[in-house]
């Protein structure tokens, strides 16, 4: 890479990455500074590569300013756990860490991993060390690198689960940054030679232009929204084995209000690769993006924009050059849904697997509802694993019949038996938003449960309580909760106000379309009421809500991401 870089025309983050000495920045100094709970401005970018985001409690922002106190800074720590599979011991470790250093809750993310919230600067190192003691790390959980690799979650649904999760792990390992910064800073490993020699053969000293996401699905399940990934793999099963994967590129959801040149995009399937090619394909797609992605404007830097700028054909031909071979033509597949199938299922392994709905992905104890305690007790007795799904839910996986009964009893004891949850709630996702996410314009996790209750009332009037409808809410348009792929999408604009999007497909293959802009709760309910009534009266057999609103022209189908309006 040429060292004659014109920094002026590049985004500032490019310079920060370059100057960070392979992701060290001034983190040790920032951590040692006793007079602020924050880290330096530059380090807030670098820390992301270590899975750490600086946040602050926005609920008390104004009052602390008057109190002559700095904002209540704390940190989000996100784990890297490809495929989201945790041993009970690891679950217990996270449970304990959340009490010891975080806000006593665990957040299950939309990328099959844990987030701890509210970790103070002085506890960051101890937290990461203790995670490391339990074979967990946070390397590259955020930042301009390949992030946590997702995979199909449910062993009960497919005998190939073990194989894809292994593949997810291998891809993740292969694409990890190679710098020793993480081990030096957090685990007190010895400083390795401080030089700009090629320590990052894949990423180079400026890493990727922007974040990069990979997910693997096993049809007909699309539980990790394969078309939202920069790089998606769709397992193709023929004659009882995985013969390879269709390759989808250029998915990505984040947008920015007021910037029409930003848009969500579903991935484009460009061909098929064999299992022994998959890591190479992943590496080369990353490399093409590394060399062609936009480093001037971070809002045009994701792979989706690179591909639309180059054109799919041009992109594929470039990829072929990097690979040295052509991908085979894509094979047939059918995806049915992007949500989870809840309840106990006996897998082909003869063991029991419980897919369990966790509202907002938040594991906590609140009054009679003691989910956190229940899962702690369950972790103490199960003979299987706990797997996080891409929809903020979890699977208590691989248990014997005896343990299954124990699990049921414990869920009951702690007031968290999976009761009759509506089809809408089961398919709900909310990002964290206020009060800790600095990007949020409006509530999401704290508010969506209430809104769902109110929509349920309307659905019940039409006997649609059981109807499965995907609803997702985020506090900003960055897309963590994948709202653009929901049948009902709500994106925060300002406190109490949301854009309402309709018409995503139930299987996650189609983007939704803006229906109403900047409306409040009353307006949201008033807009949905007649459509739901119409749906109840006039739907075709088996027709999903998202398909119905398009057929009835409530909204026009979005075929290309760039046609999307905010």
């Amino acid at each position, binding site marked *: 890479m040429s060292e004659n870089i014109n920094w002026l025309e590049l985004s500032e983050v490019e310079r920060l990455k370059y100057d960070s000495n392979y992701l060290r920045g001034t983190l040790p100094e920032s951590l040692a500074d006793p*007079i602020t709970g924050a880290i330096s401005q530059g380090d807030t970018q670098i820390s992301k590569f270590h899975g750490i985001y600086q946040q602050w409690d926005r609920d008390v922002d104004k009052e602390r300013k008057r109190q002559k106190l700095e904002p209540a800074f704390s940190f989000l720590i996100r784990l890297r756990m490809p495929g989201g599979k945790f041993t009970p011991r690891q679950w217990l470790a996270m449970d304990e860490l959340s009490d010891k250093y975080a806000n006593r809750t665990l957040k299950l993310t939309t990328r099959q991993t844990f987030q701890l919230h509210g970790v103070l600067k002085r506890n960051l190192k101890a937290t990461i060390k203790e995670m490391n003691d339990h074979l967990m790390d946070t390397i590259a959980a955020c930042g301009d690198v390949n992030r946590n690799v997702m995979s199909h979650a449910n062993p009960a649904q497919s005998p190939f689960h073990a194989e894809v999760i292994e593949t997810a792990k291998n891809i993740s390992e292969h694409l990890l940054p190679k710098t020793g910064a993480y081990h030096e800073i957090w685990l007190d490993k010895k400083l390795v030679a401080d030089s700009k020699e090629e320590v990052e053969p894949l990423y180079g000293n400026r890493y990727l232009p922007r974040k990069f996401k990979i997910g693997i699905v096993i049809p007909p399940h699309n539980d990790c929204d394969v078309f939202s990934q920069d790089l998606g793999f769709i397992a193709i099963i023929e004659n009882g084995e995985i013969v390879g994967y269709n390759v989808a590129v250029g998915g990505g959801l984040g947008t920015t209000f007021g910037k029409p040149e930003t848009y969500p995009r579903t991935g484009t399937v460009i061909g098929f690769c064999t299992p022994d090619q998959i890591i190479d394909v992943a590496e080369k797609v990353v490399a093409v993006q590394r060399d062609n992605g936009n480093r001037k404007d971070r809002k045009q830097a994701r792979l989706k924009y690179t591909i639309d700028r180059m054109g799919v054909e041009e992109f594929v031909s470039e990829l072929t050059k990097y690979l040295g071979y052509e991908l085979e033509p894509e094979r047939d597949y059918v995806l049915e849904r992007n949500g989870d199938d809840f309840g106990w299922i006996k897998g082909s392994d003869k063991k029991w697997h419980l897919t369990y709905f966790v509202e907002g992905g938040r594991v906590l104890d609140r009054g009679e509802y003691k989910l956190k305690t229940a899962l702690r007790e369950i972790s103490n007795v199960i003979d299987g694993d706990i797997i996080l799904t891409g929809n903020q839910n979890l699977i208590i996986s691989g248990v014997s019949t005896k343990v299954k009964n124990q699990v049921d009893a414990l869920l009951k004891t702690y007031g968290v038996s999976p009761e009759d949850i509506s089809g809408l709630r089961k398919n709900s996702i909310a990002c964290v938003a206020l009060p800790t996410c600095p990007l949020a314009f409006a509530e999401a996790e704290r508010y969506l449960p209430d809104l769902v209750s109110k929509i349920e009332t309307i659905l019940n009037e039409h006997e649609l309580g059981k109807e499965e409808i995907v609803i997702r809410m985020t506090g900003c348009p960055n897309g963590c909760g994948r709202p653009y792929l929901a049948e009902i999408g709500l994106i925060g604009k300002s406190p109490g106000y949301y854009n309402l999007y309709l018409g995503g497909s139930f299987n996650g293959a189609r983007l939704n379309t803006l229906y109403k802009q900047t409306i409040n709760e009353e307006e949201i309910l008033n807009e949905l009421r007649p459509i739901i009534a119409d749906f109840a009266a006039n739907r075709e057999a088996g027709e999903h809500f998202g398909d119905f609103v398009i057929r009835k022209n409530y909204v026009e189908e979005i075929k290309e991401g760039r046609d999307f309006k905010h």
Partner: protein
Amino acid sequence: MSLKTNPLNDAQLSALSQLVEGLNKEQTVWLNGYFEGRLAALGGVEVPAVASTSASTAAAPPAQSAIKLTILYGTETGHSQGLAEKLGEKASFKGIDAQVLSLYDYNYKKLNEEDNVAIIVSTHGEGDPPDMAEDFYKYVTGPRAPQLDGVNYSVLALGDKTYKHFCKTGEEIDEALKSRGAYRVTQAVKCDVDYEQPAETWMNLFLLNLAPAEIPEPVVSSETSVATPSSAGGFGEEFSKSNPYMATVLEKVRITGNDSDKEVYHVELSLEGSGLEYEPGDSLGIFTKNPEALVEDILAFTGFDPEQKVDVGEEEYSIKEALSHHLEITMLTFDLLTKYQEKTKNAELAKLLADDEALDAYLYGHDVLDLLEDYPYEWNARKLVEVLRPIPPRLYSISSSMESVGEEVHVTVSVVRYERKNRKRNGACSSHLADSIEIDEQVPVYIDKNPSFKLPANGSKIIMVGAGTGVAPYRAFMQHRESLGIKGESWLFFGDRRFSSDFLYQTEWQKLLKKEILTKIDVAFSRDQEDKVYVQHKLKEQQKEVFDWLENGAHLYLCGDMKYMAKDVNKALLDIIQTQGGISEEQAEKYVKNLKREKRFQTDVY
């Protein structure tokens, strides 16, 4: 006045014109008298023959042999020093050749050569003399004290009746001098925290006995403390402790975070038009009222008719009003317990008074209602009022500099609240400010000068050690240096409970660091980790550099809790000096004493 015809240098001249400007008639008359006195005291110095009409002021009678007076003070808080200086002025005005010295600077071996000595000294903690008086005290009360025949003296003892050993140092010095044959010109006077009036009386009496009125009294009293309280606020009115200024609250904000178990308020008050002035290091006296609940509880317990009239000093109030506004009921003092016992003849209480440890425990955290409950007696309202002491104003270290905030004064108030015997207890002043006083309301205040907690005049290095609200004066120090552009290195050691909620004035320190007004800061938060970490631990961590600073002339300040923090910091300091200086414990003690003598170690602890 032409420059050619005056003997003053430029600085004096400019100071003079600054002084003269804006003086009213009364003040000018008083100054006229003052200078006559000064002149007399100078022993009839010849006035240079200059063509000046003001030469007529030299007509004061030449003093044949001026009376000599040595005024000695021993102080921790500066009150004794203030009084000594005042006595010096009064004496000079009377033509007495007065010299004011701290007990540090005084060569006590010459005590037997003195004609007249006035000693103003305070008592601290367990009846201890102030540091600066320690050597003198040991000398005169010890076996090596000389015969003092022919020495005239009197003692003014300062103290606080909250403590058992009220005014002990003064008492003992008084006794010692007497026993060595010195002549007690006037009885020693012991003052409680409201010392102004008795001190004034003592001074006047003492001077009268030394020099019977040779020089006419000035037309107008110089003493602000004898001014009658007035709400008129006319031009030239002087506000003081006995005539407090009604200051309007401009801002009141709790500055501990909502997850703190401490309630600390930053309060800004207007001094606009009051003429009150203060310097960093001074304190603000605030008059307060007692918590209503406690007053009600006492009335209910005793069954007093709330409207019954009682006398407090010269004034008559209803018992309810007296308990609310005029008498101390939230705290117990040794003095009160003694009087209470004398009246009640309670045997249990007598036992308590005889047991130092139990007594200390009882004095801490109990109030008048506890006393009434624990040692029952058939009180009537008038009798009870006689044993209670007047409620003194509360002092708060000022946390602002006038150079920065103009005619405002800021204080940092930690609210005292605790629960005992199922009853919630509230500090009289702090809870009053926290619960009852809102922005735009007024509170009576005065300035309490503290000459022994002052920034060095130049930009010498300063090390500031403070825990909790002990950080208040350092905010004033920093504002002062910033506003005046005084360059000088500074280092703050701050301690409190929790970083996230108790880092008082955090954003201000951050800005001061950025602007390099504050050079360094070390913080200790005791409850953020398993081991309790306090400021003294931080001092020790940094001991090499702390010692370097001291060796390079740094001034060291200590402000905050006396019982624990000050003790621990003093100990840490001795350790540091011993270790870093490679000297014995005794030498380290001398080193510290010397710092104090040079006014390079100043404390404001409470």
